[in-house]
């Protein structure tokens, strides 16, 4: 069991208040190295705020975050990224007026010093993985929405992170692209820990080792896809008491 080893990323009672609103309320959370963990929950459950705190985009109001055995709670986001966390935004965030390869270059070049060859290889390899290698010189802003999402995932992969956080990556993708995405995540799963916020239940069931369900800022349940599917509380949270 994974509980015997130090978790790769863990949260110890983290909370986030926006004024009087409690978005995330004393969440404990731990994911072992190499696991694919899906985070699901109804709209407004605090999923994005929660992963925002893990990657440093949003400061915690209380609690502690450990990554790879170190306390990173006070570390600014850019330093956490350089320690091996990659993050993709819920709303696509790329450089529309730069070429695809320049987008990926910005994501990866700081890893390689002056090794231009390694940078170029990483750019090609990352774009290859999401199927955009033939569009390397196009302007990112000219891509379709789905392709822009894939570009953002390529930027994440190019950082060779230990922990990859994807906030609703399949939103706006076509079915064929989703199939490719599921395959890609499975491939990556062995090399890195992946946190996946996802609404598409087929994607969740096809990729996740474990699922954490958030509701109203708290952890409602954690378990395997089969456990979660059978969990009555989860059904109530999603469907409402009367329908359950």
């Amino acid at each position, binding site marked *: 069991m994974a509980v015997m080893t130090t978790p790769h990323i863990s949260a110890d009672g983290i909370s986030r208040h926006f004024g009087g609103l409690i978005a995330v309320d004393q969440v404990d959370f731990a994911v072992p190295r190499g696991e694919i963990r899906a985070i699901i929950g109804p709209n407004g459950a605090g999923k994005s705020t929660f992963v925002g705190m893990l*990657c440093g*985009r949003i400061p915690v109001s209380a609690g502690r975050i450990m990554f790879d055995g170190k306390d990173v709670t006070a570390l*600014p*986001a*850019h330093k956490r*990224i*350089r320690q091996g966390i990659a*993050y993709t*935004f819920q709303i696509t*965030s*790329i*450089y*529309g*007026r*730069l*070429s695809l*390869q*320049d987008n990926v*270059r*910005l*994501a990866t*070049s*700081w890893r390689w010093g002056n090794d231009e060859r390694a940078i170029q290889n990483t750019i090609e390899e990352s774009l290859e993985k999401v199927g955009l290698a033939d569009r390397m*010189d196009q*302007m990112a802003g000219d891509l379709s929405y789905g392709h822009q999402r894939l570009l953002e995932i390529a*930027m994440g992969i190019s*950082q060779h992170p230990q922990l990859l956080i994807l906030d609703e990556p399949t939103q706006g993708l076509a079915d064929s692209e989703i199939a490719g995405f599921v395959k890609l995540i499975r491939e990556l799963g062995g090399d890195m820990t992946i946190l996946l916020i996802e609404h598409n239940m087929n994607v969740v069931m096809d990729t996740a080792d474990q699922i954490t369900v958030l509701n109203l800022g708290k952890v409602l349940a954690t378990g395997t896809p089969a456990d979660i599917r059978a969990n009555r509380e989860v059904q109530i949270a999603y469907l409402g008491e009367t329908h359950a």
Partner: protein
Amino acid sequence: MIEKAGMTDARKSLYFHLGLIGALFILQFILPAYHHGNLARIMVLACYAMGYNILFGYTGLLSLGHAMFFAAGMYGMGLPMVHLGWTPEPALISAIAAGVVVSAGIGFLALRTSGVSFMIVTLMFAQAGFLTILYFGEWTRGDEGFVIKQAERVMAGFDLSQPVNRYNAALILFSICLLLTIRLVHSRFGRVMIAIRENEERTHMLGYDVHFHKWMAVIMSGTMAALAGAAYALLFGYAGATFASVQYSIFPLLWVLLGGAGTALGPFVGTLFMFYLIDLSSSFTTAYMLIAGLALVLLTLFLPQGLVGEFRRKVVPWLS
């Protein structure tokens, strides 16, 4: 729109700008005295605009207080020469030091804000700087300013009040600023500056210390502006509080917008254009500012990327 990776584009761009520098060198033998003098002045002011462009055009931060950096260089040069009897060489160093110190300090404080607040804060700091210059009128002589005597404006054996020397000193300074800009834009640091302009949040979440990069951009921008201010004092022999006023904070913004923000050559073209627009229109009407204003409005409407920006978009995409 943005320079692509690869040596060839960078090299083409470099040759283009070296060609321009060559053309400016040759022009001094052709131009009549009046335009010869103008062009020297325009090249110095273009350095001011190039400094502004580092922050506004490449990093995406709009400052309304750059006159204080220009003035820091101007007085950093002029005051020790006039009151302490310094020669131009050490005075140039004190001018650059003044630029670094003022921009580092103001940048540190102003960058605690962003967007409109950043504009307001830089405007207020510049206004405070302007009033400080007036307050110490005993030394600065306030609005009236002071003259740096011709005999003192001799650097490395060259009398910089002589038109030929002045023109070539301005050209050297202009070349340095232009080549530094091109070097910066193609450097890794410059790419991150552009990335901040294009998408600050994304840049931070890719692992870059956005705040540090912005601060360095303010310092580079402010120091280049100070260098231009110092050169202006030395070459034209005058320092006055007008150069620290709001008007001189707006000028580089206009020059850069007209010429093309985020293009290496835009600041020079914008400065040249506006200088002659005012010069020509004032020769036949007293309402020359009306003509200048109208031209600005039309250009902004029909060439929103500025003269060089549109030229790059339509003709030479490899231009820095």
